[in-house]
Structures are given as C-alpha cells and as structure tokens.
C-alpha cells in the first residue's frame, strides 16, 4: 500500500492568515486529492490534481484555495486567508490511476491528515 505523509500534523493559525498544508507521497503517483472533514461531519472532496493541473474541484474549493506541486514531489494546499469555518482535518489522497494487481482505479490512499485550527 502506498504511503502518504502530511505535514504539519496540527496547524493553529489566526483568522486571515495564510496556511500551506503539505502532502508527500512516498512513491510516484499520478493523481492527487485534497479532502477536508469538519469535526463530526462527513469527508468532503475539495480538489483533484493530475499532470500538474487541477482536474476537478468542488464548490468548497473557491478562490481562497490553491494547489500545486512545486518540486515534483510535495503536493500543497494553500488557504490564502483563513476563516473560522476552515477549521477541519485536511486529508491528502493519492491514486495511480491505473488498474493494478494490488489496487484499482478508484482506490485512493489517504494520508493521516492535518488538523487545522483557525482562531
């Protein structure tokens, strides 16, 4: 199973500040995703990223959000001006987009998450 790490594990920030959440897949993958989960609520899709560009995004992913893969390895989610309601767990996920003996096209591997707290 591919390994995904996320940093930091917990980020506390003041409202209006910018935060950058990082995802580091251990092996090369084609598809990257960000999800968020507000405490006690369901996991919500934010954005998918393929071939260095956004593939799909949800209504949540507005202009204050951006993603990039600056060095070909780390996959980052930037929130430009955080709001109180951005407080949530943010999960990165990866997928190699291919049928494989071990896992199939729809299987996404999730990282441990970053807990973002906006004060």
């Amino acid at each position: 199973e591919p390994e995904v790490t996320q940093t930091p594990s917990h980020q506390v920030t003041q409202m209006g500040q910018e935060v950058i959440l990082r995802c580091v897949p251990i092996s090369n993958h084609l598809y990257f995703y960000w999800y968020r989960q507000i405490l006690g609520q369901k996991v919500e899709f934010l954005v998918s990223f393929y071939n260095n560009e956004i593939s799909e995004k949800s209504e949540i992913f507005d202009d204050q959000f951006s993603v990039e893969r600056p060095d070909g390895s780390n996959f980052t989610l930037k929130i430009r001006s955080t709001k109180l309601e951005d407080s949530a767990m943010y999960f990165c996920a990866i997928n190699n987009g291919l049928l494989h003996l071990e896992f199939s096209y729809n299987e996404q591997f999730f990282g441990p998450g970053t807990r973002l707290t906006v004060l």
Partner: protein
Amino acid sequence: LAKTTQPISMDSYEGQEVNITCSHNNIATNDYITWYQQFPSQGPRFIIQGYKTKVTNEVASLFIPADRKSSTLSLPRVSLSDTAVYYCLVGITGNQFYFGTGTSLTVIP
C-alpha cells in the same frame, strides 16, 4: 453522481457477522462501488471495491445484486477494533470521490 444512502449507525456484538447495506439507485453503468473505513482522527482506509456480483478479500465481502442499485458490505466475526465509520461510495473515476454520512458501527463486547 450517484447519491448513496446508508444507515446512520449500527451495533453488533463481538464475533458476529455484520452486514451494512448501501443504496445507490442512480448508479451509472461505469460506476464502481467502493467501501472505506475510518477511525477517529484518521484518514479513510480502503476496504473493498466491486462492480457486480460478489467480491471477497481478506477483510470483507461485498455483495452487489444484478441491478447494482444497492450493495452490502459484510464483515465476518467483528471485533472491538472494527468499531469505525464505514462509507459507501460510487464513482466512475478516481477524480470524484464524494463521501456520504457513512455508517457508524459500534462493536459491543
């Protein structure tokens, strides 16, 4: 996207078989059905995936009837460590993964 409906919660005693059913009446022809498990403060973890009929792996079985409008995740002989939220998802690609509210399973000693 096919919307999924699952029971909000279920309780089971240790050692019993647990079946969680998910309804997805609007499933499209190319959609796969995937189940994830999530423990508190952790990312979802893949359990099993199928397209039709029955799929079994070392963790669970997935039963899908011919019309594919529902699916049932079967967990054999659950233990306390199986207490978690279980999500049913349907989708055609890895690009769109929309989680429902899931089923919170509590395993009782």
